[in-house]
């Protein structure tokens, strides 16, 4: 598809969508968002890019095959669950670390739950792109 408007818009849109997807992923624990939504937004970004510039370009922009992204995400999700075992808890019990916590401030929270959400993000992103790219390449 060779549309100048689409091409010009895509440059802005894709960057915005990708940044927004990460934003949605990170804020998800307290406000609407999360890995699933973030992954969908991220996938939309690449899909838009693929429509504007072709699947080949989109694949290059992603750098790794989307099916690998999905599998790595699944592995990260599993790892987040197994992490609990290192601290003597049952599978998938959330592990929390508050960096710089004081009496009054709880500091920067890091957790296995966030790791799991990142896994979800990658699985959703990778799976949708696997499907879309394969479909679009089939259509050529």
């Amino acid at each position, binding site marked *: 598809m060779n549309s100048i408007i689409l091409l010009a818009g895509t440059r802005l849109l894709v960057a915005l969508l990708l940044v927004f997807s990460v934003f949605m992923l990170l804020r998800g624990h307290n406000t609407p968002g*999360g890995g699933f*939504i973030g992954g969908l937004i991220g996938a939309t970004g690449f899909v838009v890019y693929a429509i504007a510039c072709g699947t080949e370009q989109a694949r290059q922009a992603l750098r790794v095959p989307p099916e690998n992204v999905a599998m790595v995400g*699944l592995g990260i*999700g599993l790892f987040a669950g197994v992490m609990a075992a290192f601290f003597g808890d049952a599978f*998938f019990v959330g592990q929390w670390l508050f960096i710089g916590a004081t009496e009054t401030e709880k500091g920067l929270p890091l957790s296995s739950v966030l790791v799991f959400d990142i896994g979800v993000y990658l699985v959703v992103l990778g799976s949708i792109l696997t499907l*879309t790219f394969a479909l*679009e390449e089939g259509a050529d």
Partner: protein
Amino acid sequence: MAGHSEVADKGPWARPAGLLPPVLAAALFVLFLGMVPEIADEQVLRWAWDWVPSLGIAITFLVDGLSLTFALLITGIGSLVFLYSSKYLQGHPHFARFMLFIVMFMLSMLGLVLADNLLTLFVFWELTTITSYLLIGFDHSTAKGRRSALQALLLTGTGGLALLAGFILIGNVAGTFELSEIRAQGGVLIESALYLPILILVLAGTFTKSAQFPLHFWLPNAMAAPTPVSAYLHSATMVKAGVYLMARMHPNLGGTDVWLWVLTIAGAVTAVFASIMALKQTDLKQSLAYTTLMALGTLTLFLAADVGYAITAVMTFLVVHSLYKAALFLVVGIIDHSTGTRHVNELGGLARAMPITAVAAGVAALSMAGLPPFIGFIGKEIKYAGALAVGSEPAFVAAAVLVSNALMLAVAGIVSFSPFWRRKHLAEPLNPHEAPWQMLAGPIILAALGALFGIYPELLARSLVNPGVAAILGPDVTPAALKLWAGFNLPLVLSLVTFALGWLFYYYRRGLRTWLIGLGERLPVFDNGWDNVLDGLKALAAWQTRLVQGGLLRRYLFITFATFLVAVAGTIWLKAGPMPALEWPVLQVQHWVVIAIVVAGALLTLTTSSRIAAIAGLGAVGIGVALIFIIFGAPDVAITQLLVETLVVVLFAVAALKLPQLDPDGTKRHRPLDAALAVSIGIGVTVVMLMVTDGPIDRRLTDYFEVTSWPEAFGRNIVNVILVDFRALDTFGEIAVVAIAALSAFALLKGRKA
């Protein structure tokens, strides 16, 4: 097999694969041997680790007389069989794989007999099923090997499922899965209302595993495996797993009339039937396979009773049989290896070329035939004593044992006397030669042990048999003494009758065999029945696949939704009657707007003939649904719905280029039916929703998550907290499904292109 020893070792693993397994098994054997003094002192050793504490599942191991006897047989015979295999299969391209499988089997079997927790036991039980499948099917290039392996897997696997159900029932009744705790509760299982189902399920598992009639037919077929496998799995270990479990459950399930009669009849029929079949065979290995069945039947028969004599007979015969049967299987393997045939009529006069094998075979066979001074004789005497002491029908049991023992004597002669000593010129120059020491060690040591225990029965009685009897019947019961000369009594008379009868059977073996083969042709064959069952199952599967999966996407959807409708409407009908009283909710302006969008989108989709317009219509429906979520305060769901809707439109748009026109053939005959289904589902779902909102909403879960979301999971977005923390395991399952679905679609799309 004969040529293999000349071929050089293959692969980097061939050498360690030959060396490590025997050493490992021997080391384990020594380890268990070190426990003998404690066990002989009637102590019980126990180890426990928590596995899934939230489900009350622990990995617990228990060593008592019964499990130690099995553990010693498994590791002892294992080390000899592994040593034997290192020569028997030397140079085989998959030698290392074979050794890996058989070691895995040994460890699973050890776990099975040592487990104290029923679920741990079950896991190891299934592992033996799987590893034995791999071993039976080791020669997977032949159709026979594959069929036999699959048959064993399906039969023992089905039995395993029944067993699992039985174990779960036991756990429910007793409140624990620990065997030692269940036992401490006394007759809790026998008095329970679920006793009969438990018994049937457990026996279904043990009878398939230990090949009791009429589920016996997989065992002779399993002889498709390499001979070391037959020697190990199908004589000394795996098939005895069922016997082990029956012995283990004896204190908990035994002692009732049902137990007594089911085990007596199944055991007796198996023993007699198998020993007759053993006489009929002309293949040495098949013959031994049926004598193994006979042994399993005898063990079951004696496990029916709960008197000291009978259980002593079980423990003694268990050891006796493992010793001579493993030795004889190994001998048959040597004959096969050396001459290339196992056919009884083609063999004879091998003693000159293979003197050591001949002597080992002879000694093992004398034990099998039950002649003094071998342990087999004592085993037989104690069997007769046990038979006369049982509570069911001593005459019946004694007769069954007598017939099978006499036939056993005849088979012992056929298998290990005639190939070596019968005067016969071999049909062709087979060039028989003596086996290497690795292959001779097994038969020699096992046969020698048979003689040693015969002369010093105290050795066996004190270390294994008496603690074993105590483990089954409790410490109060006095086990019968093992003696070579127990005085002139009824068992001795029966022994003499056995010798006479057995000699007659041996002398007239050819005539008997011809007669039996003639008889066999007129009787139904179980093996064919198995094929019929499998064929029937496949035909059923093919029929129902044709019915519901015709290959037309529209048909799939129709069936899926029709099923859904029947389930929903049926439930409403059953719960609320044909006309449930409903209250129509009060709708506001914004609700009507959404409804208008959704209905308009749906109508567009239905009426248009352009695919793009249909997709746009569907998109409108989806956005309407997202609006509903926003109105009712679920922003996460709304965002997701919108994004999914967007992506679906894109995917559809890409796919639409490749799809045919809507209704390419112009027929619309299916449409009225589809419309009726769609409208019915719409009404059904609406009714369900109205009924749900009508009743009081159970807010317990909502309240729980609202209260705990922040303090326990440090999150304010309850939806997200549930997804990634409270219900993370479910989410993990879902993302796994997403990833697999994407990969499958990817494979389909790429595969079609290629």
